[in-house]
């Protein structure tokens, strides 16, 4: 009995040591940091504020049938566009629909045309507020960097 337990203990010890050494090996390379999880923070704002503005400004005509990406009714699809970039003004959605840069005024950035006359007009205004909720600096500062594992 004792022998069996001792063998199990040795095996477990080896397993743990092995895993720790793997972990240390990975830690040396310091690949991945967890810098926080804000998932779902802006979902309520998206449902109650963003979606109505998108509907009012004609976005659903093309982006709500499920074939033309992104489907703006789906939070998970649109937040991935909002996430591209590093500020409320510099992100893929604002860039697209506010026509911030286009080859000429007659050829808007967005295949469906310019949807905000300026970034202060709707729906850009509400989308910028949404960015602040999801990714704003104040929110980021509250998140402590995670332990480097890899």
């Amino acid at each position, binding site marked *: 009995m004792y022998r069996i337990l001792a063998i199990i203990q040795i095996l477990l010890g080896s397993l743990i040591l092995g895993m720790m050494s793997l972990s240390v090996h990975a830690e040396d390379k310091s690949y991945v940091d967890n810098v926080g999880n804000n*998932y779902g923070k802006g979902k309520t704002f998206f449902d109650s504020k963003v979606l109505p503005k998108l509907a009012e400004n004609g976005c659903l005509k093309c982006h709500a049938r499920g074939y033309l990406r992104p489907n703006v009714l789906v939070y998970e699809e649109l937040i991935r566009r909002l996430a591209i970039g590093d500020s409320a003004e510099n992100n893929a959605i604002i860039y697209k629909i506010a026509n911030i840069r286009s080859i000429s005024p007659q050829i808007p950035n967005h295949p469906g*045309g310019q949807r905000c006359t300026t970034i202060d007009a709707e729906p850009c205004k509400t989308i910028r507020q949404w960015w602040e909720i999801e990714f704003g600096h104040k929110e980021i500062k509250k998140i402590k960097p995670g332990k480097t594992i890899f």
Partner: protein
Amino acid sequence: MSNSKHTTNQQRRQVVKGIAAATAVTAIMPQNLFAAGRGPTAVVIGAGIAGLSAAWDLRKAGFQVAIFEKEKFTGGRMVQLQMGSLYQFTHASGVFGANREMFALAEELGLKNEIRGDAFPSGLYDNGHGLYDAGGLTDFDIETTAKTPGLSLETIRKLDLLKPDLEEIAATVDPCLLETGTAYDNESLGEYFERILGKVAGREVIKYRIEPACAAWGWPPYETSKIALLPWLARTEKFIQPSGGIGVLTRKLDSLLPVQNTTTVRYVTPADASGRHTIHYLNANLERRSVTPDVVVCAVEGKYLERIVQDMSPKQAALASNCYFSKEAIVCWILDGKHAPKEFASGQYIPDHPDQIKAKTTYWFATPGDPALNHPPHVRYCLSRRHTPEWQQSDMALEEYSWPMIKALYPQIDKSHVVDIVDYTCDDLIYLPVGYVKQMAEVLQEQRKERRGLYFAGEYVAGAHTGAACASGRSVAKVIKKHWA
């Protein structure tokens, strides 16, 4: 006895502790980002053909590679997707015969036959003077061009003047790596044809032969660099429909590489003291993460560069700020089986067509469908690129705006026969205005000089088609391997 009981309990506790510790360690082990390998770590951003090609070559060289892709699917512009009842390419429809790197990669992956296929049916053009075969998108056959209805005898006589340049360009410029054509990036297509042939003849050739080819890319001939198109026209190789479908190569690479789909890169920080860049991203669960690999390969669409890459070099910033995309507006009306077209019908027009409806239309077709391709009966309509801004300002859905045109061109269509609508309007391909190829070359020269933490790859530093993107991915992998040797 009591001593042995104590020992037993102690050992049991140790066993339990061991299990708990093992569980805890397992719990904090993250998903293994990097595939097996012992070399430097590399994150490739974007699982289009450029990113996949780069990742494939780097992995073979021993790099530990992870690929981040924001979409649920892999393949970028070479993907085929199920859209409603229609299984369809979404961007690229075929590959060019001159795509050397892509064909070599396909052969390496055992897809030699699947990536090859028949020449893409180019269809007949209608320019208001008659129907004619423009000779395919990318080969400028002077004999065929001379048969274009409406072309004056004087213009036909002058066509041979183009031969010397085309022969020289065919011999010196690789259309998949356009930096090889930097010396020719000095005037637009329109300016070039007018200079060689004279204003009248030049304009005729632009209108009847060059504009239809440019329409495939969405390029305005009087803004597009001549070297964007001439290397293709100079070659006689055809545009091919791969027998395995346009997505055959990217599907295979997806099956072999560790692509992390629904992983959205937010931004890439400037290099730290060790020369490495940190990528901030959302993982598939929308959790924020960051990673600092040895090498980042930015193989995104060029339009995202300014959003994603912080603190670009002046040359990179200049390129990124000059990177624009053409827009493609296509809509398909899926018909019920009872009202399937009896036979295939179609039309294809030049942008200056005298008929106002045809001038607004690049092409349309009505097809009985093909069950083998998962194509139901449908009518497809492609709005002329020149008229896309008019639609954009109309505030109408594309099918609504296009309805009067398709109804005029194919009167049999009726709204009561339509069971679904597939709109695949999108950003299409990069513009290559005069000067862009030089900017592209400067960025590539800069990144070839020495080891760095961030490399650019993709059509935005190669050329506007899938073969160029593939060649760019393979080319940057060679540079990285050299730097890290």
